[in-house]
């Protein structure tokens, strides 16, 4: 059964067709990778699925609901979470607090209850902190809990950002270039981590340039070029796909 | 905790350090609240300078009623909330004998009840009728009433056969008070206000406003303001080709406005105290010597032209001195009673005759119709106007 279904999604910026008529599905419990040259419209597609951008036309169906036109926070409440290509951690907040923000949709203290400091809000606060620390343990960074997040090493910042998305308890996790800027060792650890996350039952859709990572962990790969889908298949088939080779190696060599 | 302690200590040392200066001999402590800064600085500035100068002069000559004056001068920045705080401070903490000021009606009205409850004489330098009507026993005002100015203007208009006028006023307390009086009194003189506009005191240009007057086809207009913008009105009116008579309020009584409007100000008619034309008054004029003395000492002291507003501070101190003299004591109630019964005191604004029902004291004759001729203020005469 497909958890996410994208139908004929289109988005133009002025004269530029960023995403044109893209349709695909992501099966529950799988890892799907989204690849393509720079400027192929991968991040735009992400933003359209996530609600950060409004599509010009087309539909997004997530978990049986039509979610296009929703705001990101509504999409998150429905069970999606994402990370960013350029790390967007909250400055002046510690690592665990960053992750705790991810618990937002799973806690409920509002303005009034929080101001009054009602006992249940305090209990909820403690539970949020425990959950955040649990996630840090799962990611193996529990010793950095109280460090200001933006002062961590780059690789660790990526992990905290991942943890923040996990804290949303998503059924579908969107990862925008999770290995960007990481060295080889860190990249392979990231790959293992993503596989582990999938094993906990989370469906993953990721954008990535590192082909080793993509081919190692993906169940399916979708290739975009100039905003259009040119292939959507198993990794091995993609590697042999003539059009993909043309896009990646240039037309002359094909 | 420590820092809070330090802050508290700091607050208290600042407070306790601010004790009154040591005075020699019997003293009378007078408080003053003026808008030395802020939107009404044009009023408060000359008032504060006048009072400082006169207190210094008086103390050299033995003070008032034999008492050295201890002046506590405060700047309200034209804010009522600050005037309230300062009035409470002066009355309760500095325990002043009387308060001179504030400069604006809005501030005065806010502290009227504070002075009344604190049984402290308040000599306001603002003009609004509401300051002395209804009468509060401790509250007086020394500025001439707007209603008198308005009546003088209307009388002049009648003489000139004007019945359809425009009214412009600035969006300050001075403008507002005048606007109310003009609106109230015009029907009684058979004069119709067909255009009535309030303009911003910070206006940069007022062509559109005078255009509206022009469109309304008025025979003359009154421009009631205390701020520089009133000169812009005069200029713009002449620029758009309005050649009708322009009447100003006594707020025009500051030669810098006439200078600012340049040739446009020529022929503007306005009621004002005789201070502006002191040197042209006949030798037997009752006010002449008082006016000249104040004018000369202010102008030599500060190297700037005296204005009628500084004169209010002069009159307030003068009246207080007379009352203390007459009462012969520093009993607030007795001095208040003496003040209330003062008759025929010649001040810069006119001749003051107080009574239990009239805490304003000035009559219509406080005003003299004046005009601008060759860049100078002169007494207006109908024959001169025709020429």
């Amino acid at each position, binding site marked *: 059964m497909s958890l996410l279904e994208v139908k004929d999604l289109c988005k133009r910026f002025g004269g530029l067709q960023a995403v044109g008529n893209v349709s695909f599905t992501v099966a529950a419990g799988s890892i799907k990778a989204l690849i393509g040259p720079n400027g192929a419209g991968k991040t735009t597609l992400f933003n359209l699925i996530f609600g950060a951008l409004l599509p010009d036309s087309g539909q997004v169906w997530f978990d049986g609901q039509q979610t296009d036109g929703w705001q990101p926070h509504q999409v998150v409440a429905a069970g999606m979470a994402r990370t960013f290509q350029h790390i967007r951690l909250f400055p002046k907040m510690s690592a665990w607090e960053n992750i705790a923000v991810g618990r937002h949709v799973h806690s409920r203290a509002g303005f009034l209850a929080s101001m009054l400091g009602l006992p249940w809000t305090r209990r909820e606060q403690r539970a949020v902190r425990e959950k955040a620390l649990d996630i840090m343990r799962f990611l193996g960074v529990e010793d950095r809990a109280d460090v200001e997040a933006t002062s961590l090493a780059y690789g660790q910042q990526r992990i905290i950002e991942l943890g923040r998305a996990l804290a949303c308890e998503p059924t579908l996790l969107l990862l925008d270039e999770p290995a960007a800027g990481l060295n080889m060792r860190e990249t392979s650890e990231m790959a293992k981590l993503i596989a582990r996350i999938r094993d906990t039952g989370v469906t993953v859709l990721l954008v990535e340039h590192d082909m080793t990572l993509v081919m190692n962990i993906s169940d399916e790969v979708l290739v975009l070029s100039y905003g259009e889908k040119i292939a959507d298949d198993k990794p091995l088939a993609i590697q042999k796909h003539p059009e993909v080779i043309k896009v990646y190696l240039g037309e002359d060599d094909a | 905790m420590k820092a809070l302690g330090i802050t508290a200590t700091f607050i208290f040392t600042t407070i306790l350090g601010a004790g009154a200066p040591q005075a020699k001999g019997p003293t009378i402590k007078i408080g003053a609240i003026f808008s030395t800064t802020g939107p009404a600085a044009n009023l408060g500035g000359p008032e504060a300078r006048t009072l400082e100068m006169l207190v210094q002069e008086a103390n050299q000559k033995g003070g008032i009623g034999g008492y050295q004056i201890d002046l506590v001068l405060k700047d309200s920045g034209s804010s009522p909330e600050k005037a309230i705080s300062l009035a409470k401070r002066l009355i309760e903490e500095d325990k002043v004998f009387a308060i001179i000021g504030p400069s604006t009606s809005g501030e005065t009205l806010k502290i009227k009840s504070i002075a009344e409850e604190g049984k402290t004489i308040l000599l306001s330098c603002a003009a609004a009728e509401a300051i002395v009507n209804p009468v509060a026993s401790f509250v007086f005002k020394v500025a001439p009433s707007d209603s008198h100015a308005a009546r003088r203007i209307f009388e002049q208009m009648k003489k000139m056969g004007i019945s359809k006028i425009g009214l412009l006023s600035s969006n300050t307390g001075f403008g507002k008070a005048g606007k109310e009086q003009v609106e109230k009194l015009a029907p009684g003189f058979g004069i119709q206000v067909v255009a009535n506009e309030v303009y911003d005191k910070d206006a940069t*240009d007022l062509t559109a406003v005078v*255009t*509206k007057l022009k469109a309304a086809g008025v025979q003359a207009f009154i421009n009631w303001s205390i701020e*520089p913008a009133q000169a812009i009105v005069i200029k713009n009116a*002449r620029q758009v080709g309005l050649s009708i008579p322009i009447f100003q309020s006594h707020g025009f009584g500051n030669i*810098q*406005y006439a200078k*600012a409007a340049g040739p*446009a100000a020529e022929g503007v008619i306005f009621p004002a105290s005789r201070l502006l034309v002191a040197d042209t008054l006949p030798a037997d004029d009752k006010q002449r010597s008082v006016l000249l003395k104040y004018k000369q000492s202010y102008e030599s002291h500060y190297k700037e032209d005296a204005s009628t507003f500084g004169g209010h501070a002069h009159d307030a101190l003068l009246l207080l001195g007379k009352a203390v003299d007459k009462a012969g004591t520093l009993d607030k109630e007795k001095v208040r009673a003496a003040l209330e019964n003062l008759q025929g005191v010649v001040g810069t604004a006119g001749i003051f005759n107080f009574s239990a029902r009239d805490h304003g004291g000035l009559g219509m004759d406080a005003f003299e119709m004046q005009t601008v001729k060759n860049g100078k203020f002169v007494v207006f005469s109908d024959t001169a106007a025709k020429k």
Partner: protein
Amino acid sequence: MSLDLFFQYLVAGITYGTIYAIVAIGFNIIYNTTGIINFAQGEFVMLGGMIGVTLHALVPMPVAIAGAVVVTMLVGALIEMLFIRWLRRPSVLRLIIITIGLSIGIRELALLLWGEGVRALPYFTGTAVTSLSIGDVHISPQVLWVLGISAVMVAALNFFFARTLLGRQMRACACNREAAQLCGISAKNMVTLSFVLSAGIGALAGCVISPITYVQYDSGTSLALKGFTVAILGGLGNSMAAIAAGLLLGSLESFSIWVMPAAYKDVIAISILLLILFVRPTGLFGNAEAARLKDY
């Protein structure tokens, strides 16, 4: 309403508009190189007018104006060097509050120096009552002076920023400070220069408008508010847009007086400005990309 009156209101609107626009241009220059709004810009205008009037007592008017511009430029340079230059990576909000503090400080100094009196330069052409007339529509020649000088100023600035090396260097700093520094441009000097330039422009504006508006120690504040409004309405950083926006705002104010009490002139003008901002969140001619770059 007759056609004459319509045009007379339009003339009034043009008068307001040119005054606002000439002040707004100064905002844009500092904004373009530093990304901050200099809330002391109005004080440059006031200083220009005050110094111009003071000098005019001694020397002929053109010399006095030139003197005022030069002195105010020096003040601008001094301010930048004393209060801005040595700060390490200041946040935008910090810079804004510093300029607010400077604005208050300069105003109070002016009060000490010149008192609360009102001053003005004489009209460049004619006197306070001179006006050019077409039918029953009248316009003061000084308004044409302001309009003309604004136009010359914008043309000169466009030439400076587009064609001269210095101007291009300043623009480079505005786009990307680090990259500009790598190319050997002294970003700090460019910031100083932008203060000097906008102080000079402010001072010139102050002199040109002073016959119309007069100048007083606190006249900078209200001018700055209007200038800021116009700069925002046009879209920050764009001086041509500022002139258009100035004329638009001025006309709005003027025609609002025709139908509504003059007391609500600003209420109407600002309400319309807010409505425009809600529809176009980056001003009439601004672009979203630039606005995002210069967040707090």
